[in-house]
Every structure is written in C-alpha cells, then in structure tokens.
C-alpha cells in the first residue's frame, strides 16, 4: 500500500512538473515577445491598447503558476500587482502608466525570460530519469544490447557477461525510485523559482502592509463612530420611548390601586390606560429590537431574514439564496443591514417597479447583488445611503461596487470575505 502511494505521488508530481515545465518555453517566449513588441509599439501609440491586453494575458498565465504552486506544492505566492485606479480603462494613458510604473510588470518579464530554460530543465528531468529507470527495470537495455551487441546500463557498460545482465534490473529499480522520489522536489523547486520572481518584493510587501494598516485604521474609526452613534440612538429611544411609557403605566396602576375601593369605574379606566401604555411600550421595544438585530435574522439566518424583509417592501422583490451555512453573526448582521439599506434606497430613490436580491458564497466571500429596474443614477457620495452600505461592508474588508447608469438599471455588487459555518440543519423555507 505504501509503495503504491509512493509511486502514485511520484508519478503525479512528475506529470505535473513536466506539464508546467515543458509548456514553459513556448508559452513564455511567445508572451515575452508579445510583451516587448507591445511595449515598443507604445512609441506610435498602438501600445496604449496592446500593452495592457498583453499584460492581462501575462498576469493570467502567472496566476496559473501561482495556483499550481499553491495547490500542488503548498507554496503561497501572493499577487504583487498594484490596485487598478478608477477610470483606468484599456486604451487610456492612465492604464498604460499604471502598468509600466508597477515594478511587478517588469519582474513578470524577467520571469518569462528566466522561466523558459528553468522550466525546460525541471520539466525534462523528471520524465528522462523515469524513462531511463524503467528502461533498466523492465530489461529494455538488455534487449537493445542483445540486438546491437554494444549497449550498457548504469555503471555496467557494455553489458557482456550474465552477471552484467543480472545487475541491470536492480540498477533500473534504483533509478526509478530516485525519479519518483525526486518528482515532488522538482515540482517544489519550480514553485520556489516562481515565487522568487512572482511574489511581491520585500519592499512592495511592506508597502502593501502599510496600505492595509491605513485602511484598517480608517474602517476602525468608522466602526467605532457608528457603534457609538448607534448606542446613543438606542439609549435615547429607550429613554424617551419604552421607559417613559412604563413610568406612565405604573403611575396609572398606582392611581388605580388608590381608587379601586372608592371609585371602581375610574380605577377601571386607569387600568385600561395602563394596558394601552404597556402595548405601546411593547411596540416600541419591538421596533427597537428590529433595528438592533432583527429576530427573524437570528432565527432563520440571511435566507429567511432577507426573504422576510422583501415581503415587507412595497414592490415585488425576487430573492435567490444559495448558501450552505451561516456566516459569523457579525458578518451576517452586516450583510443583512447592507441589503436592507440597499433596498431602502431602491424604495426611496429608484422609482423601480421590481427589484431582486441574490446571495451566494464563492471563493471565500459572500457575494450579494441587489438590482432594480428603476431610473439609475445612484452613486456613492457623502450622505447617500450607499456610503452607509460601503461602511458596513468596509468594517469586514468587504467592498461595494455601484453600477447605475442614468436611466437604469441599477446593480449593486457587494463582496464580503467570510467563511460559512456548519451546513444549515433546517430546511429552507419554501416561500418566496
């Protein structure tokens, strides 16, 4: 069994390193030539369009190697590229400038150049060793020797007497085992070579970290501010609402207690008043709780929460949910309120006749889209509901994209990195 696993692991690794390595020289050289030509054509302006397109190809190919390194050798190679500035479409000088100013672009070219021979070498080594080992192990060398009279194997050269013949298969076995053993190491070496040139340099990594710290500081400030404001609002609502009502309720009850013997009719009126006050207090508490954490969200998760929300809106909202579990409660709540705010925006501004919400979990992130067939023109500026949505998501490293041309339709795309916990145990509700 262990032999089988060893052979399998070795053979798979050799296959993988051969695939990556032997494809390297042609693909890399073609991409390199394309890159150089497209950059050179920048002189006559054509490169403005071509260079970004070729760079997209190069980066996609590099990403393939990054994925292979991660999935096959457990070597993590982060992407070093700078974030695309707004409005940097292919063909604009801004896009070109962004590309050539990024050192990662040039390191990619170096990787293409150096990677061609390295890939060839590593890709060939595995199969060549394996084939040579099998040649000895299976006695092919002996047959060739018998046919030609001048052939040898390993340290036995040429094969002349019976002892030489017997020595060939063990040598072959040794070489085969060596090839199988080397397979994973060849793959690993290729991954490390890729990391050398495809991962961010130390300086770039530090700059990225600094950028991230800035962003975290900013979002943390937003979160703390928002939380403080929320607490103040809750305090005020309780103080002016439920608390005040309960005070008046107990006053009514106290007076009724006083009056019950002398004036039962008046006492009864006061008790009725007290009950009304308790009803109002309960209604206010319900409203408040809904704003803090809607009970249906706690009970049913995002699926039920968003569906229940959709049912209370004055326009038809189609909800599709494809989630195998529930995110952590804080993320779930942020996602819910982001959807709630987005839909409130639809109701307030879009003049839409229908809206839709979809929730899925893909690649370690919750993907939410909220669309409507309204007038469009929504944008994320200070004071609009969308800033609130972006801030809610920002607290969890989530992002909001707004696609809302004048005349509509509007589509908001939200992405919220998170893991889902235990698959849901309850059946999804059948209603929409």
């Amino acid at each position, binding site marked *: 069994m262990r032999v089988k696993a060893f052979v399998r692991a070795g053979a798979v690794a050799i296959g993988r390193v051969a695939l990556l390595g032997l494809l390297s020289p042609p693909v890399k050289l073609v991409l390199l030539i394309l890159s150089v030509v497209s950059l050179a054509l920048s002189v006559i302006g054509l490169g403005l369009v071509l260079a970004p397109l070729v760079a997209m190809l190069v980066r996609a190919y590099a990403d393939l190697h990054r994925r292979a390194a991660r999935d096959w050798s457990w070597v993590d190679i982060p992407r070093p590229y700078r974030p695309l500035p707004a409005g940097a479409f292919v063909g604009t000088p801004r896009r070109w400038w962004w590309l050539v100013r990024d050192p990662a672009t040039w390191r990619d070219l170096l990787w293409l150049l150096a990677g061609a021979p390295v890939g060839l070498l590593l890709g060939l080594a595995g199969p060549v060793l394996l084939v040579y080992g099998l040649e000895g192990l299976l006695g092919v060398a002996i047959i060739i020797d018998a046919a030609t009279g001048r052939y040898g194997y390993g340290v036995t050269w040429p094969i002349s007497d019976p002892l030489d013949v017997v020595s060939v298969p063990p040598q072959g076995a040794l070489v085969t085992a060596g090839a199988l053993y080397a397979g994973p190491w060849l793959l690993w070496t290729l991954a490390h070579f890729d990391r050398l040139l495809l991962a961010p340099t130390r300086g770039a990594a530090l700059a990225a970290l600094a950028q991230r710290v800035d962003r975290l500081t900013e979002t943390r400030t937003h979160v703390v501010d928002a939380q403080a404001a929320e607490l103040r609002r809750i305090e005020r609502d309780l103080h002016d609402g439920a608390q005040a009502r309960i005070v008046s309720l107990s006053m009514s009850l106290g007076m009724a207690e006083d009056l019950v013997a002398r004036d039962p009719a008046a006492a009864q009126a006061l008790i009725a008043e007290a*009950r009304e006050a*308790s*009803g109002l207090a309960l209604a206010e508490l*319900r409203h408040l709780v*809904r704003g803090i954490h809607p*009970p249906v969200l706690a009970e049913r998760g995002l699926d039920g929460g968003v569906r*229940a929300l959709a049912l209370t809106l004055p326009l038809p909202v189609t909800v599709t949910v494809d989630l195998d579990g529930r995110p952590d409660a804080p993320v779930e709540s942020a996602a819910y309120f982001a959807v709630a705010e987005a839909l409130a925006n639809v109701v307030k501004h879009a003049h839409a006749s229908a809206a839709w919400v979809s929730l899925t979990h893909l690649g370690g992130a919750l993907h939410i889209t909220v669309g409507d067939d309204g007038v469009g023109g929504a944008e994320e500026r200070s004071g609009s509901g969308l800033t609130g949505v972006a801030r809610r998501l920002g607290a969890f490293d989530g992002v909001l994209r707004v696609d809302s041309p004048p005349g509509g339709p509007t589509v908001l795309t939200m992405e919220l990195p998170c893991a889902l916990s235990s698959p849901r145990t*309850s059946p999804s*509700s059948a209603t929409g």
Partner: protein
Amino acid sequence: MRVVIAEDLALLRDGLIRLLSSYGFTVAAAVDTGEALHAALLEHRPDVAVVDVRLPPTFTDEGLRAAIAARAAVPGLPVLVLSQHVEQLYARELLSDRRGGVGYLLKDRVATVGEFVDAVRRVAGGGTAMDPEVVSQLLARSTPTAALTPREREVLGLMAEGRSNAAIASRLFVTDKAVGKHINNIFAKLGLPQSEDDNRRVLAVLAYLNA
C-alpha cells in the same frame, strides 16, 4: 376543550395555563421545548395548541417548525402561534397548507384577555386568527385593494384577521346585513369567488393578500 401549551418562560407559561384554565380549557400538557411540543401534539391530539415561536434548545423558530411539522402529520391540527414579533414570512408558512385552524398573534394580544380567548376558540373551531399587524402589512402591499372604500378596507382587514360576519358587525356597530353587503362588494371588486362559509372566505382573502 383540551389544549397543549408550549412556552419556555415559566412566568408566561404559568400565566397562560391560569388564563386558559379559568376560561374552561383543560391543559393536557405544558411543555418548554420544540421536541417536547412535537411529541405532546402527536400524543395528546389536543383541540388546540398555543405555541411560542422561539423555544429551546436553539432559541430560533423551533416552536413554529414543530407546529408546522405536527400539522403535516395531523392535517388541520389547530395551532395558535404566539411571538414577540410577527413576520409575514412565518404567516405565509403557517397558511401555506390552505387549511384553517391556524392563528398567529403577537404575545401582546394575550393582555386583551377576552379577545385572546375568543381567538383560541376560533382556531380550535377551524377558523383563523391573524394579528392585525400582519394584516395591515398585507393590506399596505396589496395594490388592488386601493380600489376599495375606506369602510370596505376596514371590513377586509377584520375579515383577514379571521373574524366572523357577526363579530365584524358588532365591532363596526353596523348590522350583519350591512357587513354582508360590504363583503359582496369586496369580493366583486377583487374578483374572488363567493362562499357562504366564514372560514373558507377568510382563507380565500388571506391567500389573495399573500399572493
């Protein structure tokens, strides 16, 4: 009339037992978890069950699920669901089997004892009891009901809550005949098929509003 009660807060459970006992109900079982509720419903087959939505151990919607499951096993088993908050989503799920004998009320409504007991009896008799808050949400969303007169909307709302013609008449201080006329107008305007049976009519209205 035999009743099963499911409520996890002892204070409220005892209150419900006392209240219903004093109105002539026999409490067959009073339980505090969803599982126990399911077992009690199947064992006792009560005339009506009064169930809190949120129950241990998960404190989510176990009561509601147990009630719906029991109704699937025993079609038409009368269940009155109580909750601190009402959701149209839950109302839909309760009504989705299109059978009567369903109630869904805010816990606050227990305070109006007479009306609450009336609702329990109505559900036990195969009728419905929908919370006014659910009904007003349904009415607010329904565009065709804009064609109704204010009085007709009022009648439609009370009907959706599950009240009989006589109850609507006494609530609005009009005669039964006047209510009947309003109902005819409403059904004609909304294009609903007429029916003499109170319960069936209520279910038709709720199905229409829930669509």
